[in-house]
């Protein structure tokens, strides 16, 4: 088993499960957003902000946002440990990934509850 300082207290089975659970949430959210935009070609600001003012949409969006962070982290960790051999560069890349995901989550929460 790969022991990595940027993967504390986790194992492959947890990763495997997280990846699939978050994938299902992201799949449902993607289908919903594409369908919503397809069936509302003349969307305006009132309807768009109205959609995100519902509490279920805030919860659904937050769930998708957290799923993006988890899914991207597991996926990019696997890709980084497979292809980036020098430890310092891999560490730097993963640090960048987790910082970016953290910023996206905080940014997204602010947008969701700003509507």
């Amino acid at each position, binding site marked *: 088993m790969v022991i990595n300082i940027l993967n504390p207290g986790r194992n492959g089975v947890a990763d495997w499960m997280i990846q699939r659970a978050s994938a299902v949430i992201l799949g449902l959210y993607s289908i919903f957003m594409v369908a919503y935009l397809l069936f509302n070609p003349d969307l305006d600001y009132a309807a*768009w902000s109205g959609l995100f003012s519902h509490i279920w949409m805030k919860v659904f969006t937050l769930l998708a946002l957290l799923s*993006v962070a988890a899914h*991207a982290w597991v996926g990019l960790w696997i890709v980084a440990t497979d292809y980036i051999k020098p430890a310092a560069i891999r560490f730097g890349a993963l640090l960048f990934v987790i910082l970016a995901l953290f910023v996206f989550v905080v940014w997204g929460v602010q947008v969701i509850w700003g509507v």
Partner: protein
Amino acid sequence: MAARRAIHRLSRRPDLMIIESYQKLPVVYSCGPGEKSAVKSQRPLSTAKRPVNLDLSSIQFPLPALVSISHRVSGIMLFIGLIFLMWAFQVSLSSPAGFNTVREAMAHGFFARLVLWGLLSALGFHFVAGVRHLIMDMGHGETLEGGQRGAQLTIIISALLVVMAGVWVW
């Protein structure tokens, strides 16, 4: 049980198998200058003489391997694309003027529409390849032929989605 199944499945990933075999190459441990020859002599002769092919262009990837690599590439594309999606998400919900900015960009901006089409295409492929993973997790299409057919289906369905996304954006 789930762990064994996961590991079993991982061991059959064609792109990972290449990496696995790569990792089985003899390891040369780093040491002081005086010890170098001593460590070298400890390596078995058979592995020292084993030919190593590092010319990747001469290796033929089977279709499931190409689908697997593309799944990873599209995932990285989606991660990079998050910055554009977050921008559109924030600006479109900030004010009516912001909403129109995003709408105009999606309707007329060449760069914005190219990015949007690229991201929708990456999402389409990543989605279809991901659904294939879930179907294989349930025990379907795990044979050699099943893997081939699943990879072919993934490419056909996602190609359709890429074209449909292009029609939608333009």
